[in-house]
């Protein structure tokens, strides 16, 4: 169903793939970033990036320019470039007084955005005359920690989710490095830090993840109230919300223009479809094998009842992930037609899910 890779017992707080998916950067819930290379079907550790002094919270790997950006609880961010033998860090001054929580390269890779507990987003770009990364702040009206970010494919708009239960869309147009953006479906006036939209699903639950669809007209977000919401700019900014019966989702990813994969505390990815003005549940993508209710001796049964207060061994986690999914990333393909996506979990595993294989293995499943 999915290819399973284990990286120890520590939770994988964040991970990122290089362009060819031959290398993988991950942080095992500490101040280090490990770079693994694929050799003979096995992941072998090649480099350890240890510049952060506290826990790393975000990693993003720019596919075209082959640069890695990392951010951490030590309020620092580093841009790493590979010089042929090792990865060289460059410190980015973020000017924040709380932990950085998430980081994303823009699609053009000429800037990146970092969310933080200081209730602001730092948009950083490279100033060549000073040979330095500088940051600009988006502040208003964020009332709480920025938990997640995603860039619009046009390289100008930035969506952020926050623990004040709201999702916002900003213009992140940096006039120093790029040409003026033209009007788009989210807004026409786009000076830096202009808020183009503020969306809420009406309930509590802070936002765990945001994701623009490949066309950039739809923005999905998941919250801690087990909800999935989608706002559609092409459809009068209509907000669709599905309050599901599952445990909360921590991550979401568009795999086609209308299909959204979410994953979270249920340890498995779920597929939802957005069509005809509603968000519909399609299928679980990890269907646990039925444990053949093998016969159990009377002695064993009574022992189980004695030691565990139950007569069968159903306390085992039946999903492939043995703990919550922390992050879903695009592995190969694009958001408009994803070929494979990956999920990193608290169980120290990264699973790579192949869409075509899933379609053939799960009866009646077509992802369109």
């Amino acid at each position, binding site marked *: 169903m999915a290819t399973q890779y284990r990286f120890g017992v520590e939770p994988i707080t964040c991970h990122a793939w290089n362009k060819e998916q031959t290398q993988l950067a991950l942080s095992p819930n500490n101040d280090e970033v490990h770079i693994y290379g694929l050799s003979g079907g096995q992941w072998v550790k090649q480099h350890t990036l240890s510049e952060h002094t506290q826990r790393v919270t975000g990693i993003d790997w720019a596919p075209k320019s082959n640069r890695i950006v990392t951010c951490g609880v030590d309020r620092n961010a580093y841009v790493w470039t590979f010089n042929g033998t090792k990865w060289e860090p460059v410190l980015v001054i973020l000017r924040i007084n709380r932990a950085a929580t998430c980081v994303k390269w823009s699609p053009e890779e000429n800037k990146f955005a970092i969310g933080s507990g200081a209730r602001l987003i730092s948009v950083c770009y490279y100033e060549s005359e000073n040979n330095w990364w500088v940051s600009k702040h988006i502040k208003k009206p964020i*009332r709480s920690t920025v938990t997640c970010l995603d860039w619009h494919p046009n390289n100008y708009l930035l969506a952020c989710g926050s623990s004040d239960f709201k999702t916002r869309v900003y213009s992140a147009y940096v006039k120093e490095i790029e040409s003026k953006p033209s009007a788009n479906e989210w807004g026409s006036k786009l000076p830096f830090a202009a808020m183009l939209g503020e969306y809420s699903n009406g309930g509590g639950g802070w936002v765990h993840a945001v994701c623009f669809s490949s066309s950039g007209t739809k923005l999905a977000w998941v919250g801690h109230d087990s909800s999935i919401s989608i706002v559609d700019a092409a459809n009068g900014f209509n907000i669709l919300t599905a309050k599901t019966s599952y445990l909360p989702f921590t991550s979401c990813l568009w795999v086609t223009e209308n299909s959204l994969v979410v994953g979270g505390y249920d340890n498995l990815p779920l597929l939802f479809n957005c069509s005809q003005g509603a968000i519909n549940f399609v299928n679980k993508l990890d269907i646990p094998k039925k444990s053949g209710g093998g016969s159990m001796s009377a002695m064993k049964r009574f022992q189980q009842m004695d030691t565990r207060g139950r007569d069968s061994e159903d306390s085992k986690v039946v999903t492939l992930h043995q703990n919550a999914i922390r992050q879903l990333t695009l592995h190969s393909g694009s958001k408009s037609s994803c070929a494979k996506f990956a999920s990193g979990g608290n169980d120290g595993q990264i699973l790579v899910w192949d869409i075509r294989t899933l379609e053939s293995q799960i009866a009646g499943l077509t992802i369109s």
Partner: protein
Amino acid sequence: MSVNTGAKLFRKVDVDQFDEERFVEDAGDDSSAVGPNESEVNNLLAQNRNAEALKAVLNNPPVNTKDQAIKDRCASLVLRVLSAFKVSEMEGAINGLEQPAQDVLMKYLYRGFESPKEAVQSNLLAWHEKLFAVGGYGCIVRVLTDRKTV
């Protein structure tokens, strides 16, 4: 040796009040809709139309008001409706509810668990079991995360 004064008054100082970007709750958007129509619910109960009474009592939950007395009155009314049900009738009644109403019902159940009275508790637990079977964990999580309490 240092003296432990036990002073804890300073903990009540709200240091955030001068922060102009502090988090503020969304103001209640509709303050007129406070609480269900009590007489309607009573009428339905008197006619033994329990399922309809349940629907009516979950209408307009007093989530936006800060008046504790209104919340208390609604909670006791809901408890009265819930205790009118037999265990066999619960499932059908829950299936007849929309998803938002199920969430509201779960809020009232947890509200009910706050004040332990044994006779009511067993009834509430039965409700909880049936509602969990329909609403799943999401229903419970929404009770825990929602700032709008009943």
